[in-house]
């Protein structure tokens, strides 16, 4: 099963049969996924615009990866816990994190942005693959609590080469941890092609660690949803870890600091445009479920409103008082923290009173 790419929708939006994975989604559910994808793309583009205008320090666009993120994000149940890397704004949306909170990090007004326990969604992790071990640990905790929930952790094709990623496979297998490793293979780690990380599909890694790996068409939201849902169910039921490789393509730049023309051809990008995840679902909805312009326009309008809200909220975010840099470094009293606070006050670099 590993070598094969699981696809339930053709690029033209035609349903494809699969012996083991079946589309369980009704029309409403499909329409909801469509709406999600439209919204997260629109919000992403707004963030890019905000960055260009100097309102954000940086932005890492998800363009092209909407299906991978929404498919996986919507497969989660409320009690499941997700550990993102730094590009999973679509998953954050599914978990209910307010879009503006996702941008706090990029507006550099916070190094976090939300309370992870409110959404069962951890903070972004920049150091590649670090979060994968946290995910395994959290899953071991769930096991000990007897909680019938699962953990999912996201990582990239590039991050797959980090020792932490591979150790997390060892541990998940050894402890039979309820964790799903979700690799968005968008074919690049900045400029580095995935072929530098592996000569075989990344999903194949799993078997050598003793658990199943699946390769799914990452631009097919239905396939992603179904494969992830099955993996999560298996994990919740004590079946142990699964690796899912969502084969997709990063349509935009790595981040707003990146210039992808230096390392890839327009022709390749053009080719992937024809596999657009949103167009694909739109075609299905139109043809098989008779969704019309009103619905699609409605989704666009809603996305537009959310984008404007996002813009407003982001622009309203002010720099916190510098004295807050001393907050939450330690839980308990620490003399060097007190000294630092004093120093800032003496220098007049804070408005806070002592």
């Amino acid at each position, binding site marked *: 099963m590993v070598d094969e790419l699981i696809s339930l929708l053709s690029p033209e939006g035609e349903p494809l049969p699969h012996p083991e994975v079946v589309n369980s989604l009704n029309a409403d559910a499909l329409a909801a996924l469509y709406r999600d994808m439209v919204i997260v793309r629109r919000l992403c583009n707004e963030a890019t615009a905000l960055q260009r205008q100097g309102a954000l320090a940086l932005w890492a666009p998800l363009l092209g990866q909407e299906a991978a993120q929404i498919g996986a994000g919507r497969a989660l149940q409320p009690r499941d816990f997700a550990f993102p890397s730094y590009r999973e704004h679509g998953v954050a949306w599914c978990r209910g994190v307010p879009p503006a909170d996702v941008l706090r990090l990029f507006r550099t007004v916070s190094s976090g942005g939300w309370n992870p326990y409110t959404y069962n969604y951890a*903070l972004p992790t920049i150091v590649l693959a670090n979060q994968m071990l946290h995910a395994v*640990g959290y899953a071991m*905790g769930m096991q000990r609590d007897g909680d019938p929930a699962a953990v999912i952790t996201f990582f990239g094709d590039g991050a797959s080469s980090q020792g932490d990623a591979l150790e997390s496979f060892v*541990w998940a297998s050894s402890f039979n941890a309820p964790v799903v490793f979700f690799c968005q293979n968008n074919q690049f780690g900045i400029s580095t092609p995935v072929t530098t990380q592996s000569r075989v599909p990344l999903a194949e890694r799993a078997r050598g660690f003793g658990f199943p790996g699946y390769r799914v068409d990452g631009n097919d939201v239905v396939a992603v949803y179904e494969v992830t849902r099955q993996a999560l169910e298996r994990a919740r039921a004590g079946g142990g870890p699964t690796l899912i490789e969502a084969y997709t393509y990063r349509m935009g730049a790595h981040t707003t600091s990146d210039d992808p023309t230096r390392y890839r051809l327009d022709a390749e990008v053009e080719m992937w445009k024809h596999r657009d995840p949103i167009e694909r679902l739109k075609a299905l909805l139109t043809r098989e479920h008779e969704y019309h312009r009103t619905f699609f326009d409605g989704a666009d309008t809603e996305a537009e409103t959310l984008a404007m809200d996002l813009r407003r909220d982001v622009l309203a975010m002010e720099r916190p008082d510098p004295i807050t840099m001393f907050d939450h*470094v330690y839980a308990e009293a620490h003399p060097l923290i007190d000294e630092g606070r004093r120093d800032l006050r003496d220098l007049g670099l804070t408005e806070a009173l002592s």
Partner: protein
Amino acid sequence: MAAALNAGLRRALEDNEKVLLMGEDIGTLGGVFRITDGLLRDFGADRVIDTPLSESAIIGTAVGLAMRGYRTVCEMQFDGFVYPAFDQIVSQVAKLRKRSDGVFTMGLVIRLPFQGGIGAIEHHSESPEAYFAHTPGLRVVSCATPHDAYWMIQQAVACDDPIIFCEPKSRYWEKGAVDLEHAGIGLFDARVVRDGRDVTVVGFGSYVKTLLRAADAAALEGRSLEVIDLRSVSPLDMDTLVSSVRKTGRLLVVQEAPHTASIGATLVAELTRHCFYDLRAPGLIVSGYHVPYPISRHEEVYRPSVERILDGVDRLYEYDA
């Protein structure tokens, strides 16, 4: 001391069911130093966890367990094997409380048998405390006696901040009284273990005992050394240190780690700042040399000895002339 640590861990496991132990060979074997002997039997494999051999994963999963409300005491088998976990410690353990605006509590303990003196081969005698002390978000402590071992490990487990817990492995087999009722002192307090008039000598871990011997020897020459067990390497208990140096006017720091960018350098710099007018001589440091920890046949030359400590005291007195 090994028995005291074992008893302290046992109490921590009894007192709080969220406490876990993780490490290589800590379960069935009881650890290569037997610090966790018998704990697997009494608390089960869900709480005393023999792990695969990957230190980064020991710390990384402990972080995830902390996010889930557990408190994990991680054993690094030897000091020299903590480095594969350095990234998780410095990038995650130290920073996650801050990054989450205080939501994540990183109440985990990393036990590190440290310092040399047991005749081991390479990588088994490192003194990496400075790396961790330099890292905001971490705390670093070291026990020097069975009493402190018993209490400090429990205090460390109870602390809501991540703690690098340095155990002087050469003292594991030393005996000493443990007051099972009272800790007597906080985790981050230094302790004056011998009062003295002339020189403040500061050390931690295995060197506390060496300093006491040096103080005995110095007394014969009519010099009265005040011996301070640092206990908390980071943060430093400046009050105790400053009052001692104000009194004696002379400072000698003893550590096994090399001098550059070390705790000793920090102590000298900070105490010079606070006691500038009191110091009759510059604060001096007796430390390991700037070489990788040597073959064990040379370790008694490399490690600060009573002789080298007394030589340091002599050098302090040279400034009196």
